[in-house]
């Protein structure tokens, strides 16, 4: 090979950054493609530069790790080993199996109207995850946001949705979200976590093997204590109240059988409810490439390879496990890709430390997953009139009706019969709820386009396997270091957005 191989890394969060650095250090030219204006992903989401934050670390954890990642990225960019394409929203990765070439298709800029195709010899998917939120009456009211959404708006835009917040749901994300909101000046009236201490104790051996992670959790808890946040365990949101915006929530204690304890209902006045029930992996790009899934996550081997040649995956896309696990997986994936692209087999002993961390952190994630299960009985309790599909405004009663009397046995049929999951978000928000309500397994979404694409961009694509032009150079060496606006194959000036 006369030219150094090129790896496209999709996603610049912890997994993507660790992978990009590991590969670049081993002589691979990396194109890092990311939707945000700055690297960091969700975990290390940075405030917009123009906001002039002089102490962004006040909203972050593990800041030193971020500084290391950022310094590495800056160094490799300056040396021309990493091309960082910011504000590039990837909607599809296409593969030419014969040539072993990939076309990474993105829409550029905030308007997402102009198409760009990046050529690569291999692809590493570090697409992260998004939050699972289970419905309850009032969950569509303005003022009800996902826990991660509240955190993203705070970290990126330095804003709060209101003055008094309740944080609720289940999962390890709730603690840092409550702590962040409180530190930023919101009054956090309560943190309602549906898991209880007993569930934590059942997983005690697996959790105790992770002193670092436990200390992290203790740090979050101490911060809550400092801000006087009331933590209610075995407690769930029953309803959000308000007419045109949130005014209060009702929470109640959960009994062991999942029923709500009579007399435990408590109404809390608030203008913000940050709610989440864990995370789900982003797998659209992997699915379209033909990668097998394991449950709802991309299946990978010990080298973080998917079962499609030339495609690696790391981080939340391969299973929810947090930033530290994403770093370990990304590092291994980047080293493996670098070796394989040179035509050699990697020696796993070289990444033994990352491998051990990966094993340990996956065990920890599995233990957490067992603790933070969705609150039992939520589906049975959901009233028929509650909207489940936020886009198409499909109610729980309509979703139930797709099964009985209409006889649907899978999410796709439920969608066809009820329209739940047919709207803008393509079921990303409601699929877990629809699965829970109907008893259908939560299957992958099968979304060939990972985001809305203007018809003009699709129409302008050349008729090749990868969507890359047959002739003409791809991103040349000379282009490395130029601004994102100057590189890539423009596909089309899309003109007006897609029609109705």
């Amino acid at each position, binding site marked *: 090979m006369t030219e150094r191989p090129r790896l496209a890394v999709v996603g610049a969060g912890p997994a993507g950054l660790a992978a990009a650095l590991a590969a670049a250090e081993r002589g691979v030219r990396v194109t890092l493609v990311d*939707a945000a204006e700055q690297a960091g992903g*969700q975990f290390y989401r940075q*405030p*917009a*530069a*123009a*906001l*002039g*934050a*002089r*102490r*962004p670390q*006040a*909203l972050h954890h593990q800041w030193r790790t971020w500084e290391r990642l950022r310094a590495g990225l800056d160094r490799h960019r300056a040396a021309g080993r990493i091309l960082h394409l910011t504000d590039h929203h990837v909607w599809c990765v296409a593969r030419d199996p014969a040539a072993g070439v990939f076309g990474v298709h993105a829409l550029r800029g*905030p*308007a997402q109207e102009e198409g760009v195709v990046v050529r690569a010899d291999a692809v590493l998917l570090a697409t992260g995850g*998004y*939050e699972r939120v289970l419905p309850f009456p009032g969950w*569509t*009211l*303005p*003022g*009800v*946001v*996902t826990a*991660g*959404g*509240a*955190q*993203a*708006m*705070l970290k*990126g*835009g*330095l*804003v*709060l*949705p*209101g003055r008094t917040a309740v944080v609720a749901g289940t999962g390890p994300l709730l603690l840092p979200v409550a702590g962040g909101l409180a*530190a*930023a*000046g919101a009054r956090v009236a309560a943190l309602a976590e549906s898991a209880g201490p007993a569930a934590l104790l059942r997983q005690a051996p697996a959790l105790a093997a992770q002193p670092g992670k436990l200390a992290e959790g203790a740090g979050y808890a101490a911060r809550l204590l400092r801000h006087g946040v009331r933590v209610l365990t075995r407690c769930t949101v029953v309803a959000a109240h308000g007419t*045109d*915006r949130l005014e209060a929530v009702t929470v109640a204690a959960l009994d062991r059988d999942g029923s709500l304890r009579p007399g435990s209902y408590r109404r809390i006045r608030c203008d913000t409810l940050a709610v989440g029930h864990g995370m789900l992996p982003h797998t659209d790009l992997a699915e379209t490439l033909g990668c097998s899934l394991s449950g709802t996550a991309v299946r990978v081997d010990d080298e973080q390879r998917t079962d499609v040649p030339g495609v690696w995956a790391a981080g939340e896309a391969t299973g929810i496990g947090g930033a530290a696990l994403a770093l370990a997986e990304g590092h291994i994936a980047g080293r493996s890709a670098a070796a394989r692209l040179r035509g050699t087999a990697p020696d796993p002993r070289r990444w033994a430390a990352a491998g051990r961390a990966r094993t340990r952190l996956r065990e920890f994630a599995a233990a957490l997953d067992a603790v933070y299960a969705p609150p039992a009985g939520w589906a049975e309790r959901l009233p028929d009139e509650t909207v489940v599909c*936020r*886009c*198409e*405004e499909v109610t729980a009663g309509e979703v139930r009706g797709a099964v009985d009397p209409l006889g649907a046995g899978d999410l796709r049929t439920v969608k066809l019969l009820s329209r739940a999951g047919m*709207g*803008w*978000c393509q079921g*990303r*928000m409601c699929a877990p709820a629809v699965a829970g309500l109907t008893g259908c397994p939560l299957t992958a979404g099968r979304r060939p386009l990972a985001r809305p694409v203007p018809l003009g961009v699709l129409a302008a694509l050349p008729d090749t396997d990868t969507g890359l032009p047959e002739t003409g150079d791809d991103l040349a060496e000379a282009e490395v270091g130029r601004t994102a606006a100057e590189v890539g194959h423009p596909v089309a000036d899309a003109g007006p*957005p897609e029609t*109705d």
Partner: protein
Amino acid sequence: MNPMELVRARPGASRTVTFDGRPLAALPGQTVAAALWAAGVTAWRSTRGAGRPRGVFCGIGVCFDCLVTVNGRPNQRACLVPVRPGDVIRTQEGTGRDDD
């Protein structure tokens, strides 16, 4: 305490935009959604079916609940689109194309 103080922000000069005709001050670098939150606005869409108010939900561009009309273009995700000086932001009614 507020988020700006917490991170010791020194934002650039604010710019004026309008929301449903009302002038608002927005900071450079903020998204449309962040600028609206900072002004105390949490809803800027009414749904196609029941006409119910919506605003930010996921905050990261996945849920499409925060769709808004900016400078006459409907269906913009407020949580992703950066606010620009002079932007005319309007509550999106239904599909946002009823006025066409």
